[in-house]
Each structure stands twice: as structure tokens, then as C-alpha cells.
């Protein structure tokens, strides 16, 4: 029995049957209740994946702290804040309900006035690097780069109101670049991605693609 359960074919068969049912239902409109049930299962599985993520994260950083690996204090800080947010979420009440052990005000402070500015700050940090790139990297070494830089300048003048204030012609030029030229390139990328996904699905069904099972190719 144990040998049968360990066989690699079983997860591939499960994958093929489940994905086949959902695809069949999507394209034909038949057996929607079966497809809906399977989709419902996936939502439950997603919830369990968070628990798995939690265990993995805790294990990884606890080992780092125990072994005093390089930069281990960062792991300690991460775990401390992780636990603080976890406790505030679990005991801080949901929506209008008051928390059991943590006040809603404290929870809101943590989430809205601590986490939110930090996340925004991290994202905004990219902006500063971009301006360094403008100075260091945006140099016309070839015609291709020249075209790219002119396009970038036109789009920058299109998105900022000052562009239209300087010359209203920047608006239709920018709109054309965004809606026509750039979209054409994206359409090609999307078709490529779609074909790639079909190929990946076929490889998985035929048993050539096993990376999703955790065993590599």
C-alpha cells in the first residue's frame, strides 16, 4: 500500500483529472457544480498554505537564531514583529468587534500607522533609485537606446500635467504610445505566455514537468 501511495503517477493523475474537469467545465459550460466544488476546495487549500508558510518561516528563522548565523538579529526582529502582528490580529478583534486582549486602537495603530507607512516607504524607495538610473544609465550609446529615452521622456510629459501645460501635443502622442505601440508589444507577450501555459499544462499532464511536485524536473 505504501509503495502505491509513493508512486509519482498518483499526483499526476490527480492533477490531470482536476485540471481537466475545470477546463472542460470552463469551455463547455457543463458540470459547473463539480468545477465549483473543486474551486471551493482550492480556496480551503490556499488557507492551509498560509499555515504551512507560517511553520516554514518560524522554522527557518528559529534555526538561524539558534545557530547565530550572520545577521541573525534581523531574524529575531522579524520574529518579534511577526508575533506582535499575529497576536494583534488574533486578539485585536475583527471589524467592529472589540478584541479580547488587544484594543482595536492599538491594532489600528500597528496596521495603519506602522505597517502602512513602512510598506509605502519601501515601495517609494524604488523612486530614488530610478532617478540615479536617469543620471547614470540613461545615456544614448546607440539608436535603440535613443528611441527608448525619447519615448520615456514623451510618456513622462504625458503622465504629468506639466506636459500638457508646456505643449498640448504631448497628450495625444503619449496616449498613442501607451494605448497602441506599447499594447501591441504586450499583446505579443500575452499570446506567448498563453501558449507557454498550454505547453506547461501538457508537459505536466504527460509527466515531464514535475517541479510542482517538489522534485525538480
Amino acid at each position, binding site marked *: 500500500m505504501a509503495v502505491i501511495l509513493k508512486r509519482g503517477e498518483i499526483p499526476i493523475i490527480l492533477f490531470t483529472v482536476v485540471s481537466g474537469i475545470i477546463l472542460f467545465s470552463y469551455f463547455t459550460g457543463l458540470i459547473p457544480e463539480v468545477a465549483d466544488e473543486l474551486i471551493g476546495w482550492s480556496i480551503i487549500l490556499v488557507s492551509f498554505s498560509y499555515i504551512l508558510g507560517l511553520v516554514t518561516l518560524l522554522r527557518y528563522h528559529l534555526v538561524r537564531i539558534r545557530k547565530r548565523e550572520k545577521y541573525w538579529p534581523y531574524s529575531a526582529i522579524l520574529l518579534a514583529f511577526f508575533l506582535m502582528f499575529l497576536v494583534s490580529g488574533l486578539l485585536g478583534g475583527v*471589524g467592529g468587534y472589540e478584541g479580547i486582549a488587544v484594543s482595536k486602537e492599538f491594532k489600528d495603530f500597528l496596521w495603519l500607522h506602522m505597517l502602512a507607512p513602512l510598506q509605502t516607504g519601501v515601495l517609494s524607495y524604488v523612486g530614488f533609485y530610478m532617478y540615479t538610473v536617469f543620471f547614470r544609465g540613461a545615456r*544614448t550609446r546607440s539608436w535603440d537606446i535613443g528611441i527608448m529615452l525619447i519615448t520615456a521622456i514623451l510618456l513622462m510629459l504625458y503622465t504629468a500635467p506639466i506636459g500638457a501645460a508646456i505643449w498640448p501635443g504631448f497628450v495625444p502622442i503619449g496616449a498613442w504610445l501607451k494605448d497602441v505601440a506599447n499594447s501591441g508589444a504586450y499583446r505579443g507577450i500575452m499570446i506567448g505566455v498563453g501558449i507557454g501555459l498550454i505547453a506547461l499544462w501538457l508537459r505536466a499532464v504527460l509527466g515531464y514537468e514535475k517541479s510542482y511536485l517538489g522534485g525538480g524536473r
Partner: protein
Amino acid sequence: MAAKTELGRFPTADRVIFLVFLILISTPLVVLIGLPIPISESTRKSYELMNSLKSGDVLVMCFEMDVGAFPALGPGDMAALKHAFTMVKEKGIKVIIFGTYESGVKIYIDKILQETKEYWESLNYGVDWVNFGWIPGHETAMATFARDVHTACSVDVYGTPVDELPIMKDIKTINDVTGIWYTTYSSPDMLPRQWSPLEWPGLKWTICSTLFGTVSWLMPYVNAGSITSYVADQRGGAEYEVLIGKRGLGCKFMDAQSLGHIYGIALIIGSNVYYLYTHAKKPKRKEE
């Protein structure tokens, strides 16, 4: 010349670039420039679609957002929320709010609702509008919502079962929804895949509010009709603020963006002038 990437050890030129950038984008917070904001066709169309909602129509506002992207898409979402809640009061539309993305949806929704409190606090929660917070599952949750709303949205953020919410009584599938405002700071693919007006005859339109770089990604969907319209980034949010007559954060950001972009263009031009000048002085090598 090589840039040192360790924190606090940037070359002097980079520090100067950062400092000037910081001063420029902070200036509009003190001194408003107030440049006129031309309204794009897509934002105007989005506004008109929202404004076309009538009494009893149902608007779904799905925010696939992380609070980190608030400066980019928050102004547009808040303007749309203000517009929606005003229509709840004036026209009697119904509004359903939630998000399915894994990262920070609940915090984001809390934040934009906190910022628009004056617009919804006098409304009847559970009858005029409802907030389901975060529904786990992302695209699978969206697929479930389309086919069976009550399964996807089983309880609201207060823990009230969906069957006890009067607003949800007649909303069983996505065909009972009139329009969707969908905000995403990542892939827009899920919207046309799961909630396309071409697939669901009851759904009249969908609007995608997204980052500027993503607009080109969703344009093929817009051209095909599986997304009806879009609002692009901070700029689209500012335009929406102008359209509803409530200038706010988005319009303030536009001044900062104008200065920032001009600074960026100046850096590109300055850098190229310097490069061409120094390049012209160097003897030409064969490889070049």
C-alpha cells in the same frame, strides 16, 4: 564611479540627486502649483459608467491592493468610493466591497474607508452597502463569486452571515451585479478571465483601476470589450477627483509628479550632454 550599494554609502552624486528629488516632490505639499489636469478619455468614460448607475443597481468594488501602493491608486479608489457612496445616498444604488489578493487587502480597505468615513457613516450598513474585507483565494475566490456570491462572501467583516444581510438577499451570481470597480497593482488578467461582461450578460461593465505600466497590459482586453474602461494610476485618480468635483490627494500628487518628471527629464538630458561631451573628447576604439 561604481555605485556602492550598501545602505548609507552612496556616492556623493547620488546623494545630491536624492536630496534634490526629495525637495522637489515635497515642495507641492507646502506650495500648491495647481496646474490644470486634462481629463483622459478612459477616466471620463469610467466616470460616466459609474454615474449611469440607477436606483437598485449593484456596484462591486474589489480592491486587489496592498497598502504600500496606496499613493499610486489610493486617490482614485477614494474618489470612486466617494462617488459611489454619494450615489447610494442620492440614487439608492447598492455597494459591495471586498478584495481577494493575499497581501494587505484588509488593511487597504480599512484605510480607504477611514479616509472616506464622512461619506458612509450616515448610510445604512448591511442595507445600502456591505464590506466583506478579505476573501481568501484570489482568482479562485473571484471565480466562486461569479457563480455563487453567497459561498464566496459567507460572512462580512463583522462576522455577520451573508443570509442576514438584507443587501445580499437578491444577489446570487455576478449576473445580479451591474458594474464592477476593480483595482489591482499587479496583474489585471483575472478581471477579464472571471468577470467579463462578455461572459456574464447581467454584468453591464467593468472598470479596472491600475498602475500606469499595467495599462498596456490591459489594453487588448479593453479593445476586445472584456474590460469596459480603465483608470490609470495616480493621474487617473486625480482626473476622477476633478470629475466628481472633490480635489484631494491625487491632485496634490500631480504637482509633485510634474516637478519629479521634469527633474527626471533634466537628469536624462544633462547625463546625455555630459556623456556626448566626454565621449567626443575620447579617442574612438575599434570595438565601439
